[in-house]
């Protein structure tokens, strides 16, 4: 396989470098520019300025059919008048693959997606999940440098979607091809990606591995978009090291390094709901809040408590069954360790 790394600079000041073999997810709400970026990589949209490079080669002015890039569309976009086999063979025919190897290659790729038995069927005879696999096979069959996937699981129901996530990861591991995946579903992004690029209003907010994006979001937008969150506003106390003065709450202890870096600055403070613990009076945790419980959502394996600490809305996620003390209208003590929060400088 060719060695390359993709490099994308787009009209809205987007700069992305994609490693070979990487699974990168472009994540963001609709209209945030992620699909536009994908379509520029595919060649269906031309950037008005900036370049798109693949392995050091400038692709910017190349037509889609002159790029070696596969695309899987959300609505599958299978050719309705062709059988599964003909659909998958189509890129080989168009790209003048040696005729003698075409059938073999099609069989190989249909085996990979588990659709060998359906080779002679037409797309309309297949289920949504099977059609998606055909689209995947068609995108992969010609050994593209990159496979682009535009919300490919969006039309599937929840169970099938989870199944296909696992399947897609397996295929990615087996084929080792670079994949760029567009979705607005943060769970999908978290579970599948090597890195996530978070989009908002046509700009790139953060590009990082899933856990980094989750625990150390670079902006309040990212922290709120990915996962459940509690956000406070406050100011890093320059007089008392390792302390932050939270608006409406008072001083808290926080990570010392972060405080030193942001000394005196106004900050957004993120505390994930699962970092909060219910505590008795005796326990010693630095940061505590009295929370009046409003709503309790019981998931069976965990409980989500939504309540208020003064004017601040607080979400708490505790594992296991609902404790006796947790009742609607009751007040509980909630605490977290210094360092379980994340500070984001507010501009």
């Amino acid at each position, binding site marked *: 396989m060719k060695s390359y790394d993709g490099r994308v600079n787009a009209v809205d000041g987007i700069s992305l470098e994609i490693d070979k073999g990487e699974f990168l997810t472009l994540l963001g709400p609709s209209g945030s520019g992620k699909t536009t970026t994908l379509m520029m990589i595919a060649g*269906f949209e031309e950037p008005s300025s900036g370049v798109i490079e693949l392995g050091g080669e400038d692709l910017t002015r190349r037509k889609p*059919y002159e790029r070696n890039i596969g695309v899987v569309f959300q609505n599958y976009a299978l*050719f*309705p008048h062709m059988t599964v086999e003909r659909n998958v063979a*189509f*890129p080989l025919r*168009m790209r003048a693959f040696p005729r003698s190897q075409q059938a073999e290659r099609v069989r190989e790729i249909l085996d990979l997606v588990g659709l060998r038995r359906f080779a002679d069927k037409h797309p309309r005879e297949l289920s949504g999940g099977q059609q998606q696999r055909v689209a995947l096979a068609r995108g992969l069959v010609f050994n593209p440098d990159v496979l682009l996937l535009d919300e490919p699981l969006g039309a599937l129901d929840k169970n099938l979607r989870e199944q296909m996530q696992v399947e897609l990861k397996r295929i990615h591991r087996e084929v080792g091809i670079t994949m760029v995946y567009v979705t607005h579903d943060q769970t999908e992004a978290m579970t599948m990606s090597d890195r996530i690029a978070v989009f908002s209003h046509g700009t790139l907010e953060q590009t990082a591995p899933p856990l980094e994006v989750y625990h150390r979001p670079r902006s309040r937008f990212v922290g709120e978009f990915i996962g459940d969150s509690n956000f406070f506003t406050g100011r890093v106390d320059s007089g008392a090291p390792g302390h932050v003065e939270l608006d409406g709450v008072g001083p808290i202890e926080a990570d010392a390094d972060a405080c030193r870096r942001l000394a005196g600055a106004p900050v957004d403070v993120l505390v994930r709901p699962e970092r909060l613990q219910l505590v008795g009076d005796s326990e010693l945790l630095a940061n505590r809040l009295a929370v009046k419980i409003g709503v309790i959502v019981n998931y069976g394996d965990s409980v989500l408590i939504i309540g208020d600490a003064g004017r601040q809305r607080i979400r708490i996620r505790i594992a296991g069954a609902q404790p006796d003390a947790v009742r609607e209208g009751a007040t509980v003590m909630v605490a977290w360790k210094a360092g379980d929060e994340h500070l984001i400088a507010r501009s």
Partner: protein
Amino acid sequence: MLPVILAVLGALFLLAPILVVVPMSFSTAISFAFPPPGYWLGYYAKYFTSEEWLEPTLNSFVIALGAMTFTMLLVVPAAFGYVRYRFRGKTLVNLLIMAPLIVPHVVSALAYYGFLGRAKLTGTLLGVMVAHGMLAVPVAFLVISATLKGYDQNLEKAAMSSGAGPFRTFVHVTLPVLRPGMLVGALFAFLSSFNEAVVSIFIGGRAAVTLPKKMYESIRLESDPVIAVVSTLLVGAVVLGVLISMFLRRRSTHAA
């Protein structure tokens, strides 16, 4: 239950007069009579052997084929432009395309007569083709633009990312996927020309006699029972045409 009975009665009311021509075409009567006094195939033999009837039939076929081609040449690019692009005056364009459907045929016929007369096309097959081609524009446009609206343009993107340039994308994907809808549009254009009488009477003159015109003249002058034969054949042809178009449409909706 009542709605079903009403629907059946309604259908019978509309169909019965048309279906009456079928037994009449096998009748032995020398003029129109129902019920027929006896049955034979004499009038069928007369139709298939008489130059007087075969020539208008052939004319009608030739004109309908020409008109259909003309219509498709106008409508296919128009439908692509109309469905895929936004432009000023789009509503007005739609209205103009639909005009032949709204304007009474007699008025159209009169207008074409003046226009084609100057071009020295009255009384020629080509003149009738052009006029019929214009008349069939609305129905073909409706069918083909509906097909195009239902067509997923991602198919073309998928073809291009598979390595097909614009031409091969059109040949291998766009055209085959749209073919059933195009065929239905063409079939409707053909039938619309084949069945048209008013414009034929105005434009056709002595030289370009179509089947409906011949029928009209025949019924006015001689009440020849061959008309029942022709009518039966025409009804059969139209039913066949509609069945074909239903089949094609089913295929295209399955495909979409």
